[in-house]
């Protein structure tokens, strides 16, 4: 049987979900034997999201144009997309900027009102991705197959989600251990 092609993606999140992924400790070695890591900020050096990915863990909400583009791209090229952690599932902490209204008030607040030395709005088209008006959970922009809440999801939860997938089964996302937020 061909190895499962696994990707992990980091959108607007704090990387905590990826840290929790690394917390799976020695099980990572077992995992590495069963999958081929084809794209990941913590496990590969590729810059382009590859074709024919079997499973992708997506950390983070969709906050800027780059996030949106990558989300659409990975949906196209992946069989099973997993919303990985509260930021992907609910927009969570990055989503708190939504309460200020839109991208402009957020930028003004952060770069002008709170800028002590040289207050200035960042603007570098093509280099710094533009903010979207609102940070959205992943499933607002693409269909998602599995939701794994948690901030971050514990290493046990991540493992319990991945193990069945490696056997070609669907994980059962029920109960406190699997779906409690926070």
């Amino acid at each position, binding site marked *: 049987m061909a190895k499962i092609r696994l990707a992990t993606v980091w959108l607007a999140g704090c990387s905590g979900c990826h840290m929790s992924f690394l917390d799976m400790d020695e099980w990572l070695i077992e995992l590495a034997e069963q999958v081929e890591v084809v794209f990941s900020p913590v496990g590969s050096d590729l810059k382009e999201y590859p074709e024919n990915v079997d499973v992708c863990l997506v950390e983070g909400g969709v906050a800027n144009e780059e996030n949106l583009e990558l989300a659409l791209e990975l949906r196209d090229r992946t069989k099973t997309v997993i*919303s990985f952690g*509260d930021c992907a*599932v*609910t*927009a*969570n*902490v990055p*989503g*708190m900027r*939504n*309460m200020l*209204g839109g991208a402009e008030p957020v930028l003004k607040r952060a770069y002008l009102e709170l800028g002590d030395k040289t207050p200035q709005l960042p603007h570098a088209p093509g280099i710094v991705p533009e903010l979207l008006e*609102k940070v*959205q*959970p992943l*499933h*607002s922009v693409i269909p*998602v197959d599995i*939701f*794994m*809440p948690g*901030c971050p999801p514990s290493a046990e939860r991540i493992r319990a989600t991945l193990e069945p997938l490696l056997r070609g089964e669907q994980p059962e*996302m*029920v*109960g*406190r251990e*699997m*779906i*409690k*937020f*926070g």
Partner: protein
Amino acid sequence: MSVVTLKINDQELATETGKTILEAAQDAGIRIPTLCHLDGITDVGACRLCLIELKGGRKLLPACVTEVAEGMEVETHTEKLQDYRRMIVELLFSEGNHVCAICVANENCELQDVAVEVGMDHTRFRYRFPDRHIDLSHPQFGIDHNRCILCTRCVRVCDEIEGAHVWDVAQRGAAEYIVSGLSQPWGEVDACTACGKCVDACPTGSIFRKGTTTAEKVGDRDKLQFLVTARQERQWTR
């Protein structure tokens, strides 16, 4: 006291007249999800989580305000009820701003628990991200409207048990919020005795004690129940 017999999920039960379906179920150890219900204060039937199906009945009925009747056959967990409950919880999450990771009530929140109970792992609705405020004017407590689910438990506990009636409901629909005094900052409401009952009554992290941080709020719900029985039955120890 006369006895009523009924069936809940095919289990035969005998209970007293005047009890609600929720009480009868609780006595029999059958759990029905609730949010606006709190033992010891009047029920308002507002959250709709405790809806049950009655055999031969057309409408779904809220267990917390429906009295038992002889021969009733109640179903508490049909597939339809589970689906409907899940959707109601999804609506609640999309309505406010719930960031569990940084919430005082994380791990001790009834809304969070109910989400797990109904199997809600995401909401299908668009988050509203409303602009709501936080009132920290009270010397001991705070209220963060972002986490308020408008269950009115604080309103009822303060009115019915403490007798201070500090809280009320202002506006309606999407603009509805819980208001203190005559729309004053909480700290300026003289009627507040700082008893802390609303802190314990609040099912979420909306009303909290100052100084508690993430996941540190542990509500003492039994205290309220104790106060009620203490007064009604004159039992002063627990």
